């Protein structure tokens, strides 16, 4: 099969989610840059790769995929013997993995992304943070992180004793929040703090961050 191409941008959190997975799996890939500033992602030819006009899009031979979390599950399924496992044994382990991947997608990411927008991205567009929105979402995130604190006091990683996609999917937006005032919510919860320190120090994630420096 022909090589893997990821159509995305180094600063796009969803692209980073996929790059992190590919580095963990030690699978070669080509990053094809998409210039969002020209609206390339909302036009052809990109729309034929992802009709929703969002980064990233993924090609492996004639297979075309989009949605970063789906792409990652395909990568893990397609390359079971390469790099880090990133998955858990059927059926119960896989059930626990699915559960914590859903928690990331539905409980963590919506709130964390709103905070990242307010506290990190808005200023890049000359806008100022809405402090009421920040306060409301920090309160929501605190409740979610209390649940994570309990979970991580019982289990080294979210889905069990090994690093998996459930942890990996948190990396991009969490890295952004570590550069904002929201960092205090992670630092004040010892198990969450240690978990974040561990996952953000992984060599594969460091390679993703290094991509932004070029």
């Amino acid at each position, binding site marked *: 099969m022909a090589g893997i191409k990821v159509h995305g941008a180094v600063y796009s959190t969803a692209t980073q989610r996929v790059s992190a997975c590919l580095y963990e799996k030690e699978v070669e890939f080509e990053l094809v840059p998409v210039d969002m500033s020209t609206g390339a992602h909302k036009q052809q030819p990109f729309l034929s790769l992802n*009709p*929703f006009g969002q980064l990233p899009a993924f090609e492996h031979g004639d*297979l075309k*995929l*989009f*949605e970063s*979390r*789906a792409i990652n*599950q*395909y990568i893990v*399924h*397609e390359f079971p013997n390469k790099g880090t496992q990133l998955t858990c044994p*059927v*059926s*119960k382990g*896989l*059930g*626990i993995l*699915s*559960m914590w*991947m*859903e*928690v990331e*997608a*539905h*409980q963590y990411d919506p709130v964390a992304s709103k905070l990242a927008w307010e506290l990190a991205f808005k200023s890049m567009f000359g806008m100022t943070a809405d402090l009421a929105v920040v306060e409301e979402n920090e309160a929501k995130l605190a409740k979610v992180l209390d*649940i994570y604190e*309990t*979970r991580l006091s019982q289990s080294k990683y979210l889905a069990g004793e090994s690093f998996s996609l459930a942890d990996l999917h948190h990396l991009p937006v969490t890295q952004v929040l570590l550069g904002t005032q929201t960092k205090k919510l992670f630092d004040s919860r010892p198990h969450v703090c240690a978990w974040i320190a561990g996952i953000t120090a992984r060599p594969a994630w460091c390679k993703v961050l290094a991509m932004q420096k070029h």
Partner: protein
Amino acid sequence: MTIKLHGAPMSTCTAKVLTCLHEKGIDFEFVPINLLAGEQKQPSFVAKNPFGLVPVLEDGDFTIFESRAITSYLAEKFKDSGCDLIRHGNIKESAMVKVWMEVESQQYSPAVSPIFFQYFIVPKRGGSPDQAIIDESSGKLGKVLDVYEQRLSGAKYLAGDFFSLADLHHLGLTFYFMKTPCARLINERPHVKAWWEDISSRPAFQKVVPGMTLGAK
């Protein structure tokens, strides 16, 4: 060992799991949770799902929450029973199922949920639907449904020419959505409309419909 599902029949997320259980022909015991009385926030339930949300599934000593994780778990564990909802034998087909499951989760439901909330939940709390929110969500949903219309003009179902979890996950929320004035967004798109009529008439979902009584007078 019995499978127990804790949930509320009128809840869209509980409906997702009920439909999956029926599609797979899995025996289960249903344990109703009284949402109006706040039972899902009580310590005995929070011990099962710390996020205090329905549904929760217990399979022997294994407890799992998040409806899409539960359906994925059931579809994998019982992959040789009933309808093949995840195309486990074909990696390309299973990848497409995952893609369109994410689309429902990340594109479709975030656009439909505010409309559902305004028409079904706000009146229960004594308020009136906020037309500005409905209009904004309708705009977003229209764009999503344009993509669906194009997709479904080339394939019978979202992930291909086979019914899968990607289609099933739309059932509960869309059922209520079709009772609102915004139903025209689906009715105006012939392939989306035909797809909806097909998936909502499946016997498994028809078993769940009688319990979906939100908004009924």
